[in-house]
Every structure is written in C-alpha cells, then in structure tokens.
C-alpha cells in the first residue's frame, strides 16, 4: 500500500470481531498531516469502533494502526495514546458534569500528566490566558464558573471541542460534533473545525450531510466495517454502491 512515512494516521487491514460479529473488516485508511477527513456511513458501519481502535479502547484482532508514520497504536493504552497527541470527542457529549467549565478545560490543558506533577500543579499566567482564549473560541466565557451539567447540549458539545483544543493534539477524532446544535451553531462548528484543520489533522464522523458539505473535505464512506467509497462528497454520493447502501434494499 501507500508509503507510511509522512502520514498522520495509517490503518491497514484492521479487523475486529465481537463474539463472532465482525465490527471492522479489513479496514484501511490514511489521514495526512493538516488534513480533514469526513467519515460517513450508516449505523453499525463501524465508525465508533474504528475510533475505539485508534484511541486504544479496543484492541484489533488483526492489522496495522500507525500514528505519525511510526508509532504502533495497538501496543499502547488510552492514556499513552492521548499523550501522543490524539484527542477524541465522543458521540454523546462527555464532559465532567460535576465540575465547572473552567476546571474541565484546566484538566484538559496540555500539561504533564504525572500524579505528583498534577497534585502540585498551580496554573501559570500563561495557562490562565490559554484557557480564557479557548473559552472565548467556544463562547463559554460567561459560564466558566458554572457546572458543566448546567450547560445545554450544544454547549456541552462545544465545551468538549474546547477541551480538545486545550489538549493541543496533532490528530483530532470528532464523533458527531453537531448533534443537537442549532443551524447557526452547526455553521460555526464547521468554521471552527476547518480552522483547526489548517494546522492539525481532523477526522470527523457525521450524519449531517449539509455539515459535511460545509466542511468541504475528503469523504470516506464506511459500511459493514470497511471502506465503501472515497472522494469528494459529490463523488461519494454519486457512487452507486453508496446509493444502494443508503437508499436501496
């Protein structure tokens, strides 16, 4: 297959089965540095399982998963992978509800993660400035001292994106970022992600086709655990296989 060096994310022939059910079947995928890739696909296509594999939550039965062209992700655990520079936003917004917006961001902020370093951590002026900047970007400055539980669904989505930014990752995995957002928020989110993709690699999983169109990125369609079609959104949606999968049967 293609040259591995120089890629940000490289999946080749990845398979995983749960009790005989093949959730991912010989999946191969490449993401270049500073590139955005949108992944679409029907329910059960294996999108979330793919993210689980990349972030170390699930071990693949077979295949190669490389980060930055050299690091084998199948040997590492979630924390190690996160510290390599892979950030993940979950399908269901997962923020720490019993803590304030500020604390959510402070925990996410890229800093040494060791026990004692964390225990004796005191935020520097720089850290505070960075958190305030992110609050500004995700429009939560006015609610920074509120508990995350009190945010609306869309705000939680944004807080989670803010946490991703605070992590300062090289690769962002974003699972359904605009679910539960208003149209205007959706447009803003697309802008934000495009902006991020100028310097980092972003993989977005999304059902909302108008949002995917807004992203204007390369699109991969997954079905039954492997790649069905690749190309621009127009190319993919014109693909007869994809049409059959979505509309047919």
């Amino acid at each position, binding site marked *: 297959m293609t040259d591995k060096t120089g890629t940000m994310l490289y999946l080749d022939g990845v398979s995983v089965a*749960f*009790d005989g*059910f093949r*959730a991912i079947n010989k999946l191969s995928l490449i993401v270049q540095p500073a590139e955005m890739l949108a992944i679409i696909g029907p329910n059960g296509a294996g999108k*979330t*399982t793919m993210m689980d594999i990349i972030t170390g939550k699930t071990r693949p039965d077979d295949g190669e998963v490389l980060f930055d062209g050299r690091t084998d992700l199948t040997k590492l655990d979630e924390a190690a992978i996160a510290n390599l520079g892979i950030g993940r936003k979950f399908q269901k917004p997962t923020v720490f509800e019993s803590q304030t917006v500020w604390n959510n961001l402070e925990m996410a902020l890229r800093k040494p993660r060791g026990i004692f370093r964390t225990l004796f951590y005191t935020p520097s002026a720089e850290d505070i400035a960075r958190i305030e900047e992110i609050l500004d970007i995700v429009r939560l400055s006015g609610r920074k001292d509120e508990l995350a539980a009190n945010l609306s669904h869309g705000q939680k989505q944004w807080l989670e994106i803010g946490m991703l930014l605070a992590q300062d990752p090289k690769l962002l995995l974003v699972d359904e970022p605009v679910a539960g957002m208003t149209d205007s928020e959706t447009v803003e989110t697309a802008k934000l992600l495009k902006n991020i993709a100028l310097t980092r690699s972003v993989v977005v999983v999304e059902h909302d086709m108008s949002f995917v169109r807004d992203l204007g990125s390369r699109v991969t369609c997954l079905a039954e655990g492997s790649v069905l079609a690749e190309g621009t959104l127009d190319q993919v949606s014109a693909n007869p296989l994809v049409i059959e999968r979505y509309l047919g049967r």
Partner: protein
Amino acid sequence: MMSDLIGTIMERSAARRWLAAAMALLVAVFAFGSPSLAQVSDAELTQRIDALAPGSYADRAGAVGALVASGDPRVVGVLQVLAEGDLLVVEETGKVVYVERSGKDFALTDPLTGESLGSVPRGDVEKVRVNNSLRRTLRTAIGQLTLLSEDRGTRLAAAQSILRDADPANLQLLDESLAAEIDPAIKRTMELARAVITLKSGSDVEQIRSAAETVAHSGSRDAASILSAAMGTVPDELRADIQASIDGLARDRAVWDALQNVWFGVSLGSVLLLAAIGLAITFGVMGVINMAHGEMVMLGAYTTFAVQETIRQNAPGLFDYSLAIALPLAFLLTALVGVAIERGVIRWLYGRALETLLATWGLSLILQQTVRSIFGPTNRQVGNPSWMSGSFEFYGLAITWSRLWIVVFALAVFVALLLVLNRTALGLQMRAVTQNRRMASAMGIRTPLVDAMTFGLGSGIAGLAGVALSQIDNVSPNLGQGYIIDSFMVVVFGGVGNLWGTLVGAMTLGIANKFLEPYAGAVLGKILILVLIILFIQRRPRGLFALKGRAVE
C-alpha cells in the same frame, strides 16, 4: 505389672460390654415386629434370666436354651455379659443383675429393663460362673440370635461385629451361618471375616494365601491395614505376595482418596452453586449485587424449620415429606420477599450499583435481626428425613445420603433454571435485558417487570438453597453470612450472564477448596482460594464466561 494387666482387662471388658449393649440395641431396633418370634412376657423372661444362676453348668446351658427360645433380642446382651463372666446374682434373692461399682457398694441394674435396683454391699453378690463348654454354648446361642436372625440388618450388624473382633473362636459359627446366608452383601462380609480370621490364626499355607487374596479383593477400606497386621504372623513364603497386594491397595487407595476429594469438592460445589446461582442471575440481569441474598437462604432454612415444627406437632407421620412441603413454601416466601425488596428499594436505585449494595446490606441486617427476634439467636434443630440420613459405601467412597441428595438437587435446580432461561418468555426477556437493557426496553420488553421477576426468581432459588442447606448446616440467623462471600467469589470467578459460568465456577472452587485443604488446612486453603481469585480477576476482570463487545460498557 500385675495391676497394669488387670487394668487392661478391665478396660477391655468394659469396651466389650458397651459393644454388647450397642449390639443388643441394634438387634432390638431391627427385630421389632418380626412376627415369627415367640412373644414372651417380661415377667416370664425375667424368670428365665434368673434361672441362669442356680444349679450346675448343665442347668445353665438349659436356661440359655430357654432364653434363646424366647427370641427376644434383649437376651443377646445378657448372654454376652454372661459369656464375659460379668453377670452377677444377689445371694439372698437369687435375682440376676448387672452391677456397677459405686464407692464401696455395687449399684445393681435389671439386665432386662435397665432399671436401677439400688445398691448392696460387695459381699452380697456372687458371679454367675461359666466354664468353657458353657461359653461355647453361649457363643452359638448369640450367633443363632444374631447371625441366623431373620432380620437382614441384625445379620449384617452381627457379621460386621465378628469382622471387627476377628476372634478365631467364631470360625465354626461363621461357617454355619455362611452356608445358610443368601444376602450377597452379608455373605461378602462374612467371607471377609472368615478370611481375616484365617489370616490371623490359620495354619495351612494355601488357606492363608487364598484368605489374603480374599481380603485384598474385598474392596474394604481396612484391607491394607488388615494385611499389614497379618504380615507378622503369616508364613515367610507368602510375605512378598502380600506386600505386593498391600502396595497395590495403597495405590488404589490413593486413587480412591483423590476421587473421594473430588466427591467432597463436588458436594461443596453444589452447595456453592445453590447459594450463588440466584445471585448470578440478579447480578447478570440487573447489574446489582444483592447483599441480602444470604438472608434469603437463611429464610429458606427457617421455613424448613417452621414446616418441621408444624409437622411434629400436628402430623408426625408426614415428617419424611417435610422437605417436599418446605420447598415450594420456601420458594414462594423468599420470592415474595425478593419482589418486595425490588419494588420497595432496589428499583429506586437503578444505575447506582454501589448504593444498591449498601441498601441491600441494610436489608440483610434487618432480616437477620427480625429472624433473631422471632426464633432466637441460637441454632435451631432441623431434622433429616429418613431418606436423607445415614451413608453408604460406593466402592471405596463414603457417601452420605444428605450430600448426595444436595448434589442431585443442585443439578436439578440448575437444569430447571436453564430451561426457564432458554425455553420461556421470561427467560428470553431476561437474557435480552442482560445483554442490552436499553435495546430490550426499546423493543417493548417491560424491563421493570422483568427486573421484579428476576429478583423474585433469584431470591426464590436462594430460598430453595436454604431448604437444602438446612440439612447440612446449623440453622441460625447468621446462616446466610457464611455463604455470601463464597457466593460472590463464584459469581466473580464464573462471570455473569451465563449460567454455565456459575456451574463451572462453583465446581472449580468447591473442588479446589477440598484439594487444598489436606495440604494447607481448611482455613489456609480458603485464604489461598481468595488470593487466587483476586489474582485471577487480574487476568479476566469479568470472569471466566464474560460477555464481550460494546454492550458491556
């Protein structure tokens, strides 16, 4: 030196007397209701016993004959005491008595009724004398009353007693009764007794050789020790053969011991299975740990107690059916308590497994204290029905009926539960909820109802376990506490959502426990098991038979 000897003799004769009494009791138990025996009144019998004292030896032999003719089983004891030379007569009255030394005097008891007859100074009583010819007569008489008795149990007990004594003097009697015996089990015992006697005192090499073979192939648990004991007396040319037999027997013994351990393990495993299986279901389906599960077992045991008490007072004839009556009642009672707990407490705590654990612990304290208040803090006596008492030997294995029935019962409950889970609508719904609660709910399964039913079922099975455990354990308010941690271990080890996991877990832990016990002792063995499980859970955090996939999270 002299006093030592006397002391030994005294001890032996005391032991014999005890044995004789025990045997008489046995005979009495078995012989009751044998219609062919001539019924003789106690007064007549006492007269015949008193007739043992006066006159010549020949007169006494006649009196013995008259006693045997009575066919009364109590006579055996009297004759045995007479053969020992321990029967005395009060000179003044001519009354034949048993005596017991009491200070300076002798305490007298009636040989027939065991009634106390007061005490007399030593000089007032005299021994009823016996000579060798009378002894022979007595032995034959006793043999006729026992070895030739019409009752199978009496004969078997007599044969076993002769086997224990291995007295050469019994050889002739043994031969006679062997010729008449038709029951194969008794015949085997008699043949073995004969072989043991020959081995001990025989003179003919061939006879001894065949006797040794009989002993070696008898399958008796004592065969090796009998042969070892005989090694000193047998002719030299037989020693090598016998030694080979002993070695062979020792090897067999090791195998049988291992099998015996497996049996003990299976037996313990069944108990664990009964106690844990309900817990596994509720944990599997609802994800909650029911700390009051042990108390459900306890309630089942107390139900058995209550049923037996009622039967004792109102219909003693039904005692053998007490367990059959207690089973449905225990199931119903504990299932109802279970449903009440689920509806009253647990359903408010869904998704908060740790809180459920605490609340059910509180319920367990309340249930324990309730039972303590009603039935008292001490152990209550729960009896075994006749078909569950006693034991039997299966080749080299000693198996008690109660344990055997519990193994059978545990497997029956397991199979029944398997059928409920795989063949009924409730089972299907339970499995669906186990695998994916939200999906099941979305498909129209009424999960609250399934939860209540599951909890009721799990608790009901605990109640059944309680009925079974009442047969082998003390029934006290703390009964459940003794099983709860072991049950947890079974569930943790076997994994949830799969009954086979519980079965394998229970049996593995049961057998492992019993195999560790001889090496490490019971307590250390248990500690070792706990440590091993804590280590095991490192490898497989969700047990042997765990569900996999996204739904688990």
